[in-house]
């Protein structure tokens, strides 16, 4: 009885599927892309422009721009703010997320 859903007494609708680099993962209505990725055990989805270091959630509230990710071919979205929608194609990104 200690899952996040229990603690928040949340009763979300049925789960749907999104993809991360083509692999199907489950997401719940209301989850952000970051929450869905974390739930799937993914904590890093981008590498930095200079040294190629791994990045995922840092602030979690839209301020730090560390969690950038490509969603439906649009690079540099903040995973912590973008809601997940059924069928979203999420892709890990390198560098600027644009073709350098």
């Amino acid at each position, binding site marked *: 009885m200690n899952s996040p859903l229990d603690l928040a007494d949340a009763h979300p609708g049925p789960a749907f599927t999104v993809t991360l680099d083509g692999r199907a993962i489950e997401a719940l209505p209301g989850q952000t892309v970051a929450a869905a990725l974390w739930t799937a055990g993914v904590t890093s989805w981008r590498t930095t422009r200079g040294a190629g270091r791994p990045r995922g959630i840092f602030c979690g509230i839209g301020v730090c721009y560390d969690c*950038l990710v490509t969603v439906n071919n649009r690079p540099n979205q903040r995973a912590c703010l973008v809601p997940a929608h059924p069928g979203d194609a999420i892709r890990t990104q390198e*560098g*600027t997320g*644009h073709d350098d």
Partner: protein
Amino acid sequence: MSKRLTCDVVIVGAGMVGAACALYAARAGLDVVIVDRGPVSGGTTGAGEGNLLVSDKEPGPELDLALLSGRLWAQLAEELGGLGELGEVIEYEAKGGLVVASTPDGLAALERFADEQRAAGVVAGPVQDGALYDLEPHLAPGLPGGVYYPQDCQVMPALAAAHLVRVSGARLLTGCTVTDVLLKTDGTVQGIRTDRGDILAPTVVNAAGTWGGEVAALAGVTLPVLPRRGFVLVTEPLPRLVRHKVYAADYVADVASDSAALQTSPVVEGTAAGPVLIGASRERVGFDREFSLPVVRALAVGATQLFPFLSDVHAMRSYLGFRPYMPDHLPAIGPDPRVPGLVHACGHEGAGIGLATGTGHLIAQLLSDKTPDLDPAPFRPDRFPEFPEEEDT
């Protein structure tokens, strides 16, 4: 906490100009202390784009100072500052500036302006037709041409100020607010009073930028520095799609204008870190820090007209700052004859990063009784009437 420090020169303001004054004064053999009520680069320095420009300046004392400053920046960039080449750590880029005309008439006016600048020592190359797109392949199609200024450069301003302070070896007191300028009975400067104690020095340099008028007032003199607000829009990081500092010819007229009303003209440039910076707005609204959607929207419209690809790029954030505006658009540099020992180095409006090195160099020459490389007379701090008439608003 109270302490009493003694030094040769105390500099008020740890922005770009204060840092450059500290560097050149220390190199002239003076013992320097810098104080700032906030952090290093906490004011206008941290809110700009880091431009070192000659292209936007008409012939005259400001252009002469910009040319001198440009040479000094290039020298500093080649120095080894303890962490590798200084130019690399402060992101110095001799990227060049490209001023773009939107009409044939505008191009003719721009070329006349460039002719005058060439006579004053500026390198300015005409750019016509296809050559424009060789320089900037992503510019909007159909533009008649422009002028290319290879002497225009850029630094990352917050880093530049911090590293110049570091390299200077000056003692730095941040979070230290100046509450008074101490005068001897004969009216000459004795030092400053701060919330952390007195600092005694025969020379006080007012490098407080947009707040320079307040420091002058502590010494009992007026200096008419006013805030001129500007916004910068920051895009997501991109590969190098904008190679130079690119701006529309209208920008020059906006910079030189005396109007308090909002003016925007597109200024677009890439940065070493990847984001594209989009300016430039000017308005005199006091120290109002409120975000303004109309201003930022106007910036975005102007930038996408110049570079259509930007319409598909995310703007991540915006920031704003307050340029230290002087009524005649010239900084105050040099000793204040009204208070012996008080020296001003402020009021550089939107050009303070670029003009900082020349300013620091002149201040150091004046403090060590050397003949300055430039005539400082046009920058005299007491050139304004003591009680200016109220402006029309």
